[in-house]
């Protein structure tokens, strides 16, 4: 609340600028571009380097400054951005043809050199957070100025999907990383204005964006407001135009506010609470099955989340490659008790570890689960720990069940499977190890979507049977916006994308 006076002043200044712009029928009006949008994001942006984060807010903001090669639509289709077409030449070679006539904010043209530079940079500079994904790249060759061939050490079918999260940089960025990211340029619809760490970032429309008519506003500001109630009051007061990560309990209040609209969409995220599979008693499949049977997922969805969640029918959410409907997990406390008896597990006591304040309503849901498991004779100790402490405990294996979600970035389950269900990936997490799953994951890395779908369905079935995780629900993403916004799309991936959005 301490920042309120400042924000109000900035807001007034902003609207003053908008008024001034409206009063002057200059170049901006001629292009049909006017006004300013201010968005309130729940998570602080961490960096201006598109290769050095996996933060959703940073992805949202930086998508406006940099273009990736490939974009992904809200219905999970991969569509051209800076690449016009792409196709696999064989299992380990991808070829991209690039868009012509695109230039960076400083006027230099976008060419194959940018792609070669960006990809080699993220592979070779292993300090970059995204570097691990691109280690499989063998070489990046340009083929003229507008085509690139990427060869990989092993099949890398999810490469186009990963590229949706990697903004293209000009080769000149290589001269001095630090100086470049002080005032970065990309080919995106907005130029970088200024960034006040932890508070807000200002972006200004780029006058010669390659997509005609885009962007539709002169100025874009992202404010970072982690506290939901602060975000909500700023929106209701008209200080900002869009907020993300609204909780179900807030929806009624927001719907009752004049000038505010609430939008929701099934998210790409599944809640999945994982077991420590090397630890007694949950390494016993019967115990895991019993725990799964004892949790009434419908109560969580209907009563605690007020319907803003959906029952899980597959570890991979609907719409994505690798999804298949396996039916809902049943709720049967009686059977759970029998299974526990068979397993000889009486007086069970489980440590349920939570990362403090990370997921909406997590403490409430955990308490509900504790009560449900109490009904079948399992005592649950809720341990709500600081995020870093919780992760340490997970690495050390000091937990039975760990409260966590997984947003299926980048609209492809390869990362999820590779991280959680291969021996090396899960070593310090769940201790999952199953050679069958490992083989299927490796086989599923090829570019052919039909092969991938088939392999992933097999993985889904194995996981569904083994229950290494509890999948309680798919998340629903809720946004609230000012009714002055035009063309806003509630994204399944929690991105707040505003380049095609206008304001009345």
């Amino acid at each position: 609340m301490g920042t309120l006076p400042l924000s109000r002043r900035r807001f007034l200044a902003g609207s003053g600028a908008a008024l001034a712009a409206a009063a002057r029928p200059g170049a901006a009006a001629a292009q049909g571009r006017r006004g300013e949008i201010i968005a309130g994001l729940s998570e602080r942006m961490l960096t201006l380097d598109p290769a050095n984060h996996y933060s959703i807010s940073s992805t949202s903001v930086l998508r406006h400054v940099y273009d990736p090669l490939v974009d992904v639509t809200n219905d999970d289709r991969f569509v051209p951005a800076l690449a016009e077409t792409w196709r696999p030449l064989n299992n380990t070679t991808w070829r991209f043809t690039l868009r012509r006539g695109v230039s960076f904010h400083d006027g230099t043209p976008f060419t194959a050199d940018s792609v070669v530079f960006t990809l080699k940079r993220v592979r070779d500079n292993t300090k970059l957070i995204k570097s691990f994904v691109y280690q499989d790249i063998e070489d990046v060759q340009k083929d003229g100025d507008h085509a690139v061939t990427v060869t990989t050490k092993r099949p890398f079918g999810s490469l186009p999907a990963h590229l949706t999260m990697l903004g293209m940089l000009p080769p000149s960025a290589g001269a001095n990383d630090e100086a470049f990211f002080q005032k970065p340029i990309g080919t995106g619809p907005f130029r970088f204005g200024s960034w006040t760490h932890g508070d807000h970032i200002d972006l200004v429309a780029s006058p010669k964006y390659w997509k005609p008519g885009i962007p539709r506003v002169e100025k874009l500001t992202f404010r970072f407001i982690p506290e939901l109630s602060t975000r909500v009051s700023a929106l209701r007061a008209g200080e900002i135009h869009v907020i993300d990560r609204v909780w179900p309990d807030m929806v009624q209040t927001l719907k009752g506010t004049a000038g505010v609209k609430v939008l929701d969409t099934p998210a790409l995220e599944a809640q999945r609470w994982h077991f420590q599979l090397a630890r007694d008693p949950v390494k016993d499949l019967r115990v895991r099955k019993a725990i799964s049977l004892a949790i009434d997922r419908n109560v969580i969805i209907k009563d605690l989340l007020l319907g803003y969640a959906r029952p899980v029918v597959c570890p991979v959410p609907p719409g994505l490659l690798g999804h298949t409907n396996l039916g809902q997990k049943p709720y049967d406390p009686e059977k759970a008790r029998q299974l526990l008896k068979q397993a000889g597990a009486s007086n069970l006591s489980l440590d349920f570890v939570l990362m403090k304040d990370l997921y909406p309503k997590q403490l409430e849901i955990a308490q509900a689960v504790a009560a449900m498991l109490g009904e079948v004779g399992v005592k649950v100790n809720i341990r709500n720990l600081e995020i870093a402490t919780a992760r340490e405990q997970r690495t050390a294996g000091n937990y039975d069940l760990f409260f966590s979600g997984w947003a299926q970035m980048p609209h492809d389950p390869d990362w999820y499977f590779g991280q959680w269900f291969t021996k090396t990936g899960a070593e310090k997490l769940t201790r999952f190890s199953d050679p069958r799953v490992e083989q299927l994951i490796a086989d599923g890395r090829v570019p052919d979507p039909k092969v991938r779908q088939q392999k992933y369905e097999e993985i889904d079935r194995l996981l569904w049977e083994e229950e290494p995780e509890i999948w309680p629900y798919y998340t629903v993403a809720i946004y609230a916006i000012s009714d002055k916004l035009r063309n806003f799309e509630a994204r399944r991936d929690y991105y707040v994308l505003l380049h095609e959005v206008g304001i009345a």
Partner: protein
Amino acid sequence: MKRLLRSPTAVTGGVLLLLVVVASVAAPLLAPADPVKPSFGRRLQPPRLLGGASAYALGTDNLGRDILARLLYGGRVSLVLAASAVALAATAGVVVGLAAGILGGRLDDFVMRLADVQLAFPVIMLAIAIVAVVGSSPAALVSVLALSGWVLYARTVRANVLTIRRLEYVEAARTLGASELRVILRHILPNTLAPILVIGSSQFATMVLLESGLSFLGLGIQPPQPSWGAMLAEGRDYLSNAWWLATVPGMAISLVVLGANLLGDGLRDVLDPRL
């Protein structure tokens, strides 16, 4: 005692505290429902006075649990923790203060510098750091709270000892051959009791607040066990649509803090001869 009963502040404070203590002790008898067991169909029912169902005098919380029951059981947690912390802090503080005052010298210097260091730390920050390291068991909480409180006693007792031990009656007792221990127990300690009582009762208020603060931050008693601070924290997210979730425990905390402070003030008026 008679003078105490004639002090309106002391009586008001005492009665307030007594009410809360009795209600908490009798929680199993008074509580209309289980404080921990959720009933999902009955989430966020308003208090009876606001038109809620008659079964829930203070309404229900985000998991459909009876707030009155949680308040009563949560009171037990808050009061027991605060009282134990005060007792522990007072004991430690008195022992250290006596030792420093009587033995003097290096020990005195060391203890008083330690006290200065302790006072230089913001209490809540110290508490957060300690709880983050050792975890939040009730024993750890009491120790953390006591750690934040011993200095007051130590300093007061030490100052008192330094004054009292030079008074004629103490000199006289010594001349008559009383042992050091007898002097301390019979002559010095009883004369420092008044300030200890005063500090204790007003510190009780601080401890309740501190414990609630830690629970609010999620460092205190772990859910689903109720505690006032945790109830406040859980209710915070519902302020816009179910304000009683946070307001009820908030009022309970205020009442106890008010009661303890009034009692402390009254005690001081009565016990401090200078006033």
